[in-house]
């Protein structure tokens, strides 16, 4: 892979990323957006975040790529953030559970 070819690919993905991030924000800047659409868009965050989590723990054949320690870590992190709303704390708890359970198992 020549440096120039790699840089062209990076620039193309960078430009495409900016366009995808900006397109609706700029195109809809001065247009009325129907209330039903606005209320539907509230579901983008939970839907995509849930999809991201699944995509990180399941392989192309639909098998779980994580084991018991990771599952317990996700549960512990989830409970922590639900109670505390503290992301750093939930990540520390999750990673601690992962390391401790992995060490025991």
């Amino acid at each position, binding site marked *: 892979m020549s*440096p120039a070819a790699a840089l062209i690919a990076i620039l193309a993905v960078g430009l495409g990323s900016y366009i*995808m991030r900006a397109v609706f924000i700029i195109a809809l800047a001065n247009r009325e957006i129907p209330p039903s659409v606005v209320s539907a868009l*509230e579901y983008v965050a939970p839907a995509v975040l849930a999809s991201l989590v*699944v995509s990180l723990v399941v392989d192309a054949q639909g098998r779980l790529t994580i084991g018991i320690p990771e599952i317990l870590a996700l549960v512990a992190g989830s409970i922590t953030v639900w109670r505390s709303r503290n*992301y750093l704390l939930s*990540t520390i708890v*999750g990673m601690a559970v992962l390391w401790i359970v992995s060490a025991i198992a």
Partner: protein
Amino acid sequence: MSFNRSMFRRGVGEAIPIFITVVPFALVLGLAVVNSGLDPLIGWSSSPIIFGGAAQLVLITLLGSGTAVAAATAAGLVVQARHLMYSAALAPIFQKQPRWFQWLGPYSLIDQVFAMAMTRADEDPDAFRAYYLGASLVYVVGWNATTALGLIVGPRVPESWQLDFAIPLIFLALLIAGINRRTKVVAALVAAAATYLTMGLPNRLGLMIGGIAGVAAGVIAQRMER
């Protein structure tokens, strides 16, 4: 138009702990650049140019394995497609923003900034903008710095630390913290199921399908609730 310093600081303050969980991913990306055999500086330049870890990782890995430029570019773009949904979701909020911010804000619209911004959707425009800029500053500076560091440190972190597991942990935490009504639980569960069923599709298309299915399920659940 005034600059709301306290909301700017709040954006910085709330972004830092979330950014810390991204550091392992930055190290993994550094490792991927080194392993790809690409010129390290060019590999790193994907951080300021693309500013999106998942797409960078996919693109760098494919380029390193000798995939044709067009195919690698297409794969990188498909991974980024969920940002179309973020752009649409933020459009109503950005309507109240000045033109310059409508053009600047999208540059730093990554998963974490989007999830944080949605929690501040009801702030007044000046406060929202200051918060968004504060959070964005943390990620832009932090991501560029730590991916550079990752070129050196990435290859030295023992795999047994499983630092990259912080990524699903933080996405799940962002998901749970954003749930304020039952219909969002429905959206999340349907999205998860749809993604699970479509994981076999190439280029993480399952992410888009899951996102669309989840939004549809949320809307239907909301109608049934009334």
